Structures are given as C-alpha cells and as structure tokens.
C-alpha cells in the first residue's frame, strides 16, 4: 500500500500549530525540483506498490538519449482513474510533468502524463467526467 502511503499529505498538529507534511513522498522526491520530459516509452511496469513508465528522453542540445524512470501511483489508484495496463504501450510518446528524485539520477514521479498522439492528459479525465 505504499503506493498510497508515499504520497500522503497530512495535517499534523505539532506544538500547537498546524503544519502540512509530505511523508515518504519527500523522502523520495523533491517537490521543489520540477521536471518536464518528453520521450517514447520503452517499458511499463504495471506493478504494486507503484506503476512505472520508462521513457527515452533526448537532450535538446546534444541529442544524447537518456532513459528516465517515471513513478506513478498504484495500479489500483490508476485503475480507479480509468486507466488500464494497456492504455500506454512501448513506443508511445508522452510528455511527463513531475518532480525529480532525490537519491537517484533520471528518476521522477508524474503529476501528469500527456499522450503526444492524442493530446489526451491521462489521469485527469475521469474526475472531470464524474458527477
């Protein structure tokens, strides 16, 4: 269940004041370091406690390609947003917005994933469709 845990945000009454704290999210990712990455998917791990996308990202200056690992929520959470494990396939190009990993190079999480072919923003649509 770390999929849910890692990103939990909580109100904690500490010393009489209310503070917001990122828990394991903050241990793994740096919310102050945003990143936008565009590339083709090379691999998908539809696994617990997190699903991962791997994408090849070309450096705009040199053209050198780096494989990035993109962490998302749990398959259960993604499923409840209307995703399926075959929604994205290797070879699909996507643009990911997220935060950089703290302890590992070329690691980020995903706040949003947009499919280049359709322009569809994944993950946001289901709540827009909710009544």
């Amino acid at each position, binding site marked *: 269940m*770390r999929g849910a845990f890692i990103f*939990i945000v909580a109100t904690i009454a500490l010393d009489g004041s209310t503070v917001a704290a990122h828990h*394991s999210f903050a241990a793994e990712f740096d919310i102050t370091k945003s990143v936008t990455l565009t590339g083709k998917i090379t691999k998908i791990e539809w696994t617990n406690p997190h699903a991962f996308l791997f994408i090849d990202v070309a450096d705009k200056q040199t053209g050198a390609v780096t494989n990035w690992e993109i962490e998302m*929520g749990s398959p*259960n959470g*993604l499923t409840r947003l209307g995703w399926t494990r075959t929604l994205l396939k290797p070879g699909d190009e996507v643009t990911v917005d997220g935060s950089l990993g703290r302890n590992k190079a070329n690691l980020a999480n995903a706040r949003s994933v947009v499919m280049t072919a359709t322009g569809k923003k994944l*993950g946001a649509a289901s709540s827009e469709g909710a009544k």
Partner: protein
Amino acid sequence: MKRTRAIAFALLVPAFVLIGSAQTGTGRIGGTVTSPDGPVAAAPVRATHQSTGRIFSTTSTTAGQFALMDLPPGMYEVSVPELGLATMPFVEKNVNVAAGQTTTLNVTLVKGNHGVIGDDNAYLTIRKKYLNVRGAAPRLADGRPDLSGVWNANVDPNPEAPALLPWANDVWKNRLSTAFRDHPDGFCLPGDPTPTIALFYKFVQTKGLLLLLFEHEPHYRQIFLDGRAHPQQADPTWMGHSVGKWDGDTLVVDTTGFNDKSWLIFATGLPHTEMLHMIERYRRPDLGHLQVDLRLEDPGTFTKPVERHMTWELAPGEEILEDICTENNKFPEYAGVK
C-alpha cells in the same frame, strides 16, 4: 512547471453582501471550494473565531458552495482539512467578518502530493460519485446494525494535537523531520492498526465476526463478536487482538496485544508501547455513512488518550483490489534507506 501553492482569495466584496444574517449583529462567510478538477462537494469547512476560539462548521454543496452563518464579528481562521488523499489542507487566517455583511472566501485546494497520478484523484472522484447514497442503515437478521460495505475512509477534519511523554515526542519529531522515511509501510510492513488510512475499508459482518479487508498490510483484521475475551497470554502482534460488543446500535471494538512496531494514526505517525489499548466505536446512522470514533490509550506514551472522530462514506460500486506491496517496492532504494 510552476510549483502550485495554496491560493486563497479572501475578498471583502460589499457588492456581494447578501442579506446580512439571520441574527442581528452577525455576519457570514460564503464562497466556493474548488480543486484543479472543479468544485469540491462535501468538503468540511470550519471557521474559528480567532479571539474566542468558537468554532463554526458547515459542508460544501454538490456545487462546492458553502455558507457559514450567524458569525459574531471578528477575525476568523477558515480551514478545510485534507480530503482523503486528494487535496492538501487549506488554512486562511484573518478572514474578517463584519456585522450584517458576507465575506466571500473562495477556497482553492491544492492536490495532495501535488497531484501525482494514481494516488489522489481517484478517491476524490469516488467521493463525488457516491454523494447521494440515501437510505436507512441495514440490519442483520438478529436485529443488529449491519456495518458491511466498502467504505471510503476519511481522516478527522479537526485532529487534536497528541499529548506525548518526552521520549515519544522526541521519536515523533524525528519521524516528522525525516519525512517518515522509516515508516513501516514503506517497507511493506503493516503501517498502522488504527482505522485512519483514507482509502477503502471493506467491512464484512456476520453474527460472530466482523472482518475488515483493506489494500495495505496485513490486508485484514478480525474483530470477534462471539463474546470471547482477549487471550490471557499471547505474543504481541502488529494489529493486536480485537473483540467487539454492541452498545445499542454502536459497535464498540476493544483491541489489546499490540507490538510496539506500528506507527499510529496513519498521517500522524505516533509511536507507542505494548501497553497500547485501542477502543473504536462504529455507528452507521444511515445507509451511506459510518461514524468512526477512535480512542488510543497508552500510559507509556501519551499523557492523555488520543482521539480521532471520522465520518466515512459508503462506496457501493467499488471493490477492494489486490495490492501485493513486495511485488516491486523500490522505495527503500530510491529513498536511500536500503
């Protein structure tokens, strides 16, 4: 990407001033609660008078609108708690209320965990989906209330600060300052025996047993309703030993026999000893809601019991799904704690 922060628009708009208030000499705070996905329904909104401490509460409508009425003039702190895992807490201080006027405060909630896909939005979506579940609470053949169902859990909107012994306070502060990196949950261990994780709990109730199923370790709890007592001697466990008795229509669950490894109250992460005694009170006032009152006693940790009071919502079309944490848990390595 720009870092999104909580944005509050506290606008005194005399032109918007409505009809004043029902009570002479009082005012109102009104507005709309929204998130990046649109209006937020059923959000608890609380205004605390900053001088007197008096608290006024309401809940947003399906269109996200709220109105706090009959407020004595003065400065208020307006707050909306975290909603499941979906949004971060909102707090706006120094919201001025004048007699006979309405202060407009539009609350813009920021997504929890800054909107990482798959962990947050789903539960807000589901909350909206089942807002209109209506009906009487069901009962079993023996006449007892039937608590069965898939429940979308909520946290306590007004959590009280824990009163901790010095050692426990030190441990807790260390947990906070290290961003919960050592939380058992990150290592696929049972994170928290208390019913405070804002995800799904499935209750399956029979005459002699209430079974709780959930998508985190250890995935189940047994609450014996057959009159048995706690075992006299048993090895301490992560979830303890639970027995339940009815107090009218309220199920009172008593749990002892804990080890000291779990972190209590999921988003808070309190330490405890093996003296921990957990008392839960479950009451289903209608088909769609479950009132959950939690009390934690531990003289080895708390200087007074810790309480939480939550209202959960039925999610009748949802189901518990498999979640095998050890399948591909990269957290220890990626958080640098391996």
